[in-house]
C-alpha cells in the first residue's frame, strides 16, 4: 500500500515532466509547447524541469513574447495564457490582468468597467476573445 502510494505519487507528478516532450522544436522554446496538443497553454509548461530545447533565449523569445510593437499578437498570447483570470477580472471589473491589457494596448483611463459591462458580449462564446476585447476598447486605446 505504502509502495503503491509512493509509486503513484511519483508517477502522477512525473507525467507532467514527460508530457512536454510532445511539443515540437519549431519556434521559440516555449511558443510551440504553449499551444500544446489539446490547445492548453499553461499545462504544457507546468514543471520546474520545463523541457524545452536549450535555445530558449538565444533563438529569440519572439514566439512566446511578441515584440511590444505587435500589439495584436502580444494581446493574443497574453489572453491565451491567462484566459481563466482575464475572464474573471473582466467579470469583476478590476484586477491585475486588466492593467496588463491596458499596458499592452496603451489605453487611457479606466477600461475595467467598460470591459465589465461588455462581459456577456465578449464571452458569448470562447472564440475571438482578444478581437472582441480590442473592439470594445478601440476608442480608448492606441490600436
Amino acid at each position, binding site marked *: 500500500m505504502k509502495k503503491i*502510494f509512493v509509486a503513484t505519487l511519483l508517477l502522477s507528478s512525473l507525467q507532467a515532466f514527460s508530457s512536454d516532450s510532445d511539443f515540437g522544436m519549431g519556434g521559440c522554446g516555449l511558443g510551440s509547447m504553449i499551444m500544446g496538443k489539446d490547445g492548453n497553454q499553461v499545462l504544457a509548461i507546468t*514543471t*520546474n524541469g520545463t523541457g524545452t530545447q536549450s535555445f530558449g533565449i538565444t533563438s529569440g523569445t519572439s514566439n512566446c513574447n511578441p515584440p511590444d510593437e505587435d500589439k495584436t499578437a502580444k494581446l493574443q498570447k497574453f489572453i491565451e495564457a491567462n484566459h481563466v483570470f482575464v475572464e474573471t477580472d473582466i467579470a469583476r471589473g478590476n484586477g491585475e490582468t486588466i492593467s496588463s491589457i491596458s499596458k499592452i494596448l496603451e489605453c487611457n483611463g479606466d477600461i475595467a468597467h467598460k470591459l465589465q*459591462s461588455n462581459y456577456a458580449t465578449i464571452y458569448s462564446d470562447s472564440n475571438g476573445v482578444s478581437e472582441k476585447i480590442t473592439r470594445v476598447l478601440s476608442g480608448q486605446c492606441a490600436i
Partner: protein
Amino acid sequence: MCYLKIALLLFSFNLFAQDYQYSVKESARNSRLFEQSAWLRLLHYRKGIINSYKSEADGEAFFTDKNGKYNPKAELLTFIDAIFKTDQLDSNEHAICRFPLRFKWLVSTLKIDPTKLPQPSCEKYNNFIKQVKAKSASIVFSSYYLNNPASVFGHTFLRLNKNNNNELLDTGINFGAATNGANPLYYVVGGFMGAFPGAFIAIPYYYKVREYNNYESRDLWSYNLNLSEEMVGRLVDHIWEVGNTNFDYYFLDENCSYHVLNLIDAINPEFHFIDELPFKGYIYTIPIDTIYALYTKENFVASVDYRPSSSTLFYNNFEKLNQNQKTIFYQIIKEDADLSMLNSLSEEDRVKILDLALNYIDYKYAEAILKEDSEKTKWKKRYLLERSKIALSSVNSIQVHPEKELPHNGHPSRKAALGIGHDSKLGTLAQFHFKFSLHDFTDPQTGFSPYMILKMGEVNFDYYEKTSKVRMKNVTLYELLSLPPLTEARKNLSWKMSIGQKLIKDKNSENPYSSIGVEGGVGATVNLKNDFTLFGLMLLDLGATKKITNNHNLRLGGGPTLGLRWMMNDYFLTALQFYQGSYLFLDHKNYFTVTWENRLYFSKYYGLSFNLNKNSKSQEFSSQFILYF
C-alpha cells in the same frame, strides 16, 4: 598605381589590426587575466583538485576554444581572436554578439579601443535587451510543494523587472531540465546522475504565475535585489550568454536554485553567494538556502513581495465571511444551484459571495478550468455572469504577510545535535544527530508551514557507555508528512511517507535491532487552538530485519499514531507522539513508543531539547544541545 596604393593601404590596415590584436593578447597574457575571478566566474569555472579548472557549462557553444571547458587561458586567448574576426558580422554568431558581457569586461579591463574592433550588428541580442527592458531583478521563491517529488523543496527562478507596475508582463528566467519524455524511473535516476541537459529559458512572468500560483497553488515570494542599473545590465547580458548553452541537470547540487544564484555571482567578482551555501553548494542546494544566502550581504534584498496562491486566496477570503454569508456560499456552490437567492442580498454581500465562488472553482478545479472542461467552465460562467452585472469593484486582498511566515526568516537547513541520556536497560548513553535538511515537527516554525514535515538525510547515533558501542539509531533518507488542519472549508487528509532505518527495542530480541524499510499512512489533523495541533494517522510499517523470531526477515505491521504539539511561543514548544503497532510473524506482536519532546530555542540557530522516550522494552531520558547552521 592607384590599385597598388589601395592594396598597400588595406595591407597596412590589416597589419595594423593584427598588430593590435597581438598586443591585446600579449597584455592579456602578461596580466594573467585568465586567472582573474571575473573571467573564471563568467565562464562558470570551478576549481577541481590540483589546480585544474572545469566549467559547469556543458554546451560547446559556450566556448570559443575547443578546450575551453577545461582551459581558462586557452579560452581567453581564443576569445580575443574571435572578437577580432571580421566575418559573420551580420549573422548574430559573432563572438561579440554571443558573449556581450565577456566582451564588455575585456574591453574595460584591457582598455581596448572599441573603434579598432569589428562592429557586428547583433540584431537578436539587441532585440532581447529591448524586449526585456530590465530595470531591476528579483529572485522568486515558489514555496514547498509536497505533491511533486521534484518540487518538494520549492523552486527559485529570476524575474527581470520593467518596473512599470505590472509584474505579469515582466520576464521570468527559469532554469530547468529537458527530460524529453524520459520515463519516470529514468527521470528520477537520471536526475541524480546528471543525465538530462538543463537550460535557461526566458518567458513572460505570467506563465510562471499561472503555473505555480494557480495550477499548482503555491505561494510566490519575490526577493527584490538591490542591484545598480549597471549590474542589472550585466545580469541581462550574462543571461544572454548562458541562454545559449546547457548545463547537465543534477537534482541535488547543480539544480535550478544553484544556477540561478550562480548567475548573480557571475556578474560581480565581489559577490560570494555560492560560498554561503551549505558545503559551498558542492553536495546539494536546497532552494531556500539560496534565499538565505542573499541575506548574508547586508541590504542586498531591497524588499520582499508576496503573491498568494489560489488556495491561499480561497481560504483567506472564506474566513472573512460572516456565518450568514458562509451559509449562502454553501448553498450556491453547487452546479445546479439557484442563484436567485442572492437577489435579496446587498450588492456588497453578493460581490463577496460570488468572488469567493470564483476563488473556489479556480482553486478546486484549476486543471479542468484551464483545460476549458465544458462542465466546469459552464458552472463558473454562471457566477461570472451574475458578477459582471454588479458594477462594484472587488477588494483584492492579502497584501499583508506576517513576518513569521516569510520564508527567509526560517531556520538554516542543516541541523546537528549532541546529547546525553540514560536508557533503563542499556545505561548511560551519548547521542549524536545530524540532519542535512530541512524541517521537522518540533523545529522552530517561523518561515515554514507548521503543518509540513520535510526531511532528507537525517542520522542519529547512540554511544552506550556500558558496552562501549556505537549504534545507528535511526537514518531517514526521506520523509514527508503533510498535516493540513481540517477547517470548515478545508477537508484535506493528512499523510506520511518515509524511507529509512530505525532501531527497534522490543521484547523479541535481547538487543535492539535494525529495521530498514518504508512507512506510510493517512489520517487527519485538527487545530484545537491556534497553537495546539493534534494529528492521528493509521500507519503501515514494512521493514527488513535480521532474523529475529520464527526465522523471519520481515517486519510487517501497523497501527495508529497520534501526535500533539503545543507551541507556546517562538521559543518554546512541547510535543507528544504515540504509536501502537501490531506486527505479524513476531512472538511479541505488540510494539509501542511514546515520545515527549520539549524544545527551548534561543534563536533560530540554537536550542535545547529535553526528551522522554518510552517503548515496549525500556525507557530513555535525554537532553540535547541543538544547532542549526
